């Protein structure tokens, strides 16, 4: 497989950018009463609200979350899971909500370098800790080798579980894992793919491990 196989141009405009731009009015009304939608420019970039600002929600508490190397000072409802905080408050929507009960792995992120399920974590538990989401791994122009390998190996169909699969796969590179496919399958068992792209997912991971 040549290196050029690993390059892909994202469509322009992206689906995400199109939805954010065209649907911003709808989105704002849907999140009314929920935790801060925060300032968002047309391109989807996010600015964090300074501490003490944002909607005045009863019982909201201040927190600083370090996500992908950037500190976000937020006010959140204590019930907010790390997953909902990442997606709804900070608007990083690469992390997906699947089952929301720790049974599917779609919401996998890294906390202090280790993979965890963001749906079974309260955001408040991670004040000051280093959180990495799929957006922190790479960009379309400079993908993480695991992202590139998933593309090259066609390691997805619908794509909904993919960011969780990739976050797990990247963490697996540093975990005790035997060299064989069976070991990879065992350590990836917490990430369910209902399309059944498992064979290509294993291939994508093994491809990166053999290159390392």
């Amino acid at each position, binding site marked *: 497989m040549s290196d050029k196989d690993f390059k892909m141009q994202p469509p322009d405009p992206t689906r995400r950018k199109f939805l954010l731009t065209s649907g911003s009015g709808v989105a704002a009304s849907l999140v009314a009463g929920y935790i801060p939608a925060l300032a968002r420019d047309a391109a989807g970039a996010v600015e964090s609200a300074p501490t003490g600002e944002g909607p005045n929600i009863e019982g909201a508490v201040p927190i600083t979350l370090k996500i992908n190397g950037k500190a976000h000072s937020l006010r959140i409802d204590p019930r907010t899971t790390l997953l909902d905080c990442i997606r709804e408050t900070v608007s990083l929507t690469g992390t997906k909500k699947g089952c929301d009960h720790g049974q599917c792995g779609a919401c996998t992120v890294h906390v202090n370098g280790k*993979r965890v399920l963001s749906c079974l974590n309260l955001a408040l538990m991670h004040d000051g800790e280093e959180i990495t989401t799929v957006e922190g791994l790479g960009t379309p122009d400079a993908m993480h080798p695991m992202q590139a390998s998933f593309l090259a190996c066609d390691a997805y169909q619908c794509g909904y579980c993919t960011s969780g699969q990739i976050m797990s796969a990247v963490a697996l590179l540093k975990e005790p894992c035997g060299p064989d496919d069976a070991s990879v399958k065992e350590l990836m068992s917490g990430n369910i793919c209902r399309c059944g792209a498992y064979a290509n997912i294993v291939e994508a991971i093994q491809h990166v491990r053999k290159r390392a």
Partner: protein
Amino acid sequence: MQIFEFIRPSDQAAAIATAAQSKTAQQGADVRFMGGGTTLIDLMKLNVETPDRVLDINRLPLDKIEVTPDGLLKIGAIVRNSDLAYHPKVQKDYAVLSQAILNGASAQIRNMATVGGNLLQRTRCVYFRDTAMPCNKREPGSGCPAITGHNRTLAILGTSDHCIATNPSDMCVAMAALEATIHVQGPKGSRAIPFGDFHLLPGNTPHRETVLEPGDLITHVTLPPPIVGSKQLYLKLRDRASYEFALSSAAVVLTIASGSITRARIALGGVGTKPWRSPEAEAALTGKPANEATFRSTAEAALRNAKPQRENKFKIELAKRCLTYALRTAAAS
């Protein structure tokens, strides 16, 4: 999820003092310690757990694994499952524990789940998890629809007319076989609880699952010094190959000399209302030759008192085969 106050106690004493204000440490607790959150947050989303106050103990200094001067392995309450399972000392001397943990949950959940939390893992009984249904464990006196309902995954050992919920933990099964001790610090001081005394049978109080009282904080677990030359194995059988709760499991710790079993510690998972140490199995093994006849009669003894329901009769035979296979494999190792 109901609103709660999130508190990060400055030290152990503050955590205990706040938790001591809870009306109970069992189902219905209004103050909860939070470790990994893998059980508690799940149940809070389902409104099965509705604490008013959540005490985050993740930054208390309870995260060490160390060997004590008298040779015990001391495991802090917030040690993560993955750190314990991959610890070289655990892999070498307490292999059954490492295997049990790595057979449970997923890599992500093992990175989150704590030892203390795993001791308090709640049942997966669907009636317990659904607040629209009666459940004696969740609402004492409301009834147990599982006994006449969907009970394929539920318990066959230690059940009562009020509850047949299975204890889902793998780690606890290994700790039962290793004769761990659970160390608790409470408002009245500290105490050490033998593993077998920690979990309670449902009886007519299924909402009481452990001996913990308000303010009791599990600080650490100790394992006895390694049994030199012991053969250890954890075998888990389930509906899929990984990331699934046990239908039946067995933790086996054997010492064999000249073909004869001199010491046996046996516990079963997936079949009991608590992590199921089997003195019947241990008695059937001790002093006997390590052969197929002994293993089969041991499995018969371990399941003799099993009481199945309509959908889980298969578990009796499954548990027998699970234990027989585990004994055979461990003895040959």
